[in-house]
């Protein structure tokens, strides 16, 4: 099959699976919605972590900003349910992108491990602020407004929203990596001093790329908050120990710095995790920890990197 033929086939397969899943196995609609969220998480993380060489442990911050912005618009705007949700998602995406634009120039001036640590601080600070701030519900969080549709319709509705967002994210990053901006962020990853010496507007490109990731993460916040129904600052919005770490792991597992790696990593990771919850209840966290060790030790270049290496040695 030709390359374009393969991608058409892949696109059709993804579209059919994505659209049909909640009708074939309705019982796992919520888990499947989270699968699309995980794909969005790892794809957006990889923009900076894999393609630009800026390993962020704080990208969950932008997701949390999106969660809260949407919830506040829904709570306080007085709009009808769907209008409020639409405005909320838009506000979440914008607020997240804006915070990346504001934080970016200073934070992206820090390189290497120092950047990773600074971003880690970002999500921790955000979780603590959100837990103490009365206006946004403090530690008791915010409840999402009641879904007006049929019972059981809520999960399907937000499933499709997240599915659409994940597909949009994939198409956007694919376009981004084909552009000269994609070349520029790769150049920054490989040798930022050289990129500067060649006249690249490095700060501008870094901030822009981070803002794209933030925009998409912020947009995902609203649907997830409403799907779960209750927004907890530590366990959902700024869940650094789960979502924040998973983003990194999924991209590394699949193969960071590639287009498909984060997608594959997210699918493998999420399915494994669900299986652990089902079959190893009580030990799921131990199993998860072991899996992480195995990933880092045996697949340092990820699944795609491992496949590529086997291919070259076989050839």
């Amino acid at each position: 099959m030709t390359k374009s033929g393969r991608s058409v086939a892949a696109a059709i397969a993804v579209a059919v699976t994505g659209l049909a899943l909640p009708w074939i196995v309705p019982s796992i609609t919520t888990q499947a919605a989270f699968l699309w969220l995980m794909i969005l998480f790892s794809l957006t993380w990889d923009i900076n972590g894999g393609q630009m060489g800026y390993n962020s442990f704080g990208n969950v911050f932008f997701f949390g900003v999106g969660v809260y912005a949407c919830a506040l618009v829904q709570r306080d705007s007085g709009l009808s349910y769907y209008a409020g949700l639409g405005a909320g998602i838009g506000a979440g995406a914008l607020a997240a992108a804006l915070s990346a634009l504001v934080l970016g120039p200073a934070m992206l001036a820090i390189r290497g491990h120092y950047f990773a640590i600074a971003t880690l601080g970002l999500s921790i600070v955000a979780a603590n602020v959100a837990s103490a701030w009365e206006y946004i519900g403090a530690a008791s969080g915010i409840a999402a407004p009641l879904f007006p549709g049929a019972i059981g319709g809520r999960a399907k509705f937000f499933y499709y929203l997240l599915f659409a967002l994940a597909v949009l994210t994939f198409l956007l990053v694919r376009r981004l990596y084909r552009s000269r901006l994609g070349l520029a962020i790769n150049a920054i990853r490989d040798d930022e001093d050289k990129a500067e010496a060649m006249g690249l507007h490095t700060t501008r490109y870094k901030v822009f790329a981070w803002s794209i990731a933030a925009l998409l993460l912020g947009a995902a916040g609203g649907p997830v908050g409403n799907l779960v129904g209750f927004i907890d600052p530590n366990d959902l919005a700024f869940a650094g120990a789960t979502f924040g770490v998973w983003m990194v792991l999924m991209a590394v597992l699949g193969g960071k710095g590639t287009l498909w790696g984060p997608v594959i990593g997210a699918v493998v990771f999420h399915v494994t995790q669900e299986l652990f919850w089902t079959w190893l209840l009580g030990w799921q966290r131990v199993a998860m920890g072991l899996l992480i060790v195995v990933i880092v030790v045996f697949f340092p270049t990820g699944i795609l990197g491992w496949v590529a290496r086997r291919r070259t040695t076989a050839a």
Partner: protein
Amino acid sequence: MSTLLEVHGVSKRFGGVVANREVSLDVPEGSITGLIGPNGSGKTTLFNSIAGTHPIDSGSIRFDGHEISRLRVPQVARLGIVRTFQQTHVYRGMDCVRNMQISTPHSGDTLLSMLRESTAAETERALQLLDFVGLYGKRMLPAGDLSFGQQKLLEFAMALMNAPRLLLLDEPTAGVNPVLINGLVDRLKRANAELGITLLVIEHNMRVIMNLASRIYCLAHGEMLAEGSPATIRDDPRVVDAYLGAT
């Protein structure tokens, strides 16, 4: 010939060490100018000062009549001064063609223009220049897989892709296979003659620099020791002393 780069009385110290003291040099437009000196004499420091890597303590650096000593590295590069490094700097994870595609001049680039893909003309130019330095056969290899000498050639090609007005070369032949050195010198001369790029070259290989440059400056202990034609420099007893450690 007008003066393209004018370095006047530049001093730079790192703590108690004076790396450059009152250094002055002129690079005429269209020339190939050499910069020699023993290890630790402050050549690379001077390059870094010109390229904007670090601020200078005093003096002035003028490029095409404009003061550039306060500008930062990317700004200097966008004015048309590109430097290569003593230790190679290439984008190791990207193949040679992609290394070249991102090395186009960035002075007119906006976010919007960065969102387009590389044009056929840009790719064509990239392949031409890779062919020019003899790396066409390696174009699909990641730059990190090239040998040190090949990375130097790639870096040179990337610099040409940037179409600079002034190219600062820090030891272009160091680490290059001696068989390839003649070819490289020839290419440097062609870049100067055919593309009109002014060159300022740091070089330790005396045969190379005598053959290449029309005018040579010699630094020693951070101070400008001598300047003149290759023949003058070769016969200057102070230069010989500086290298052989007499006095």
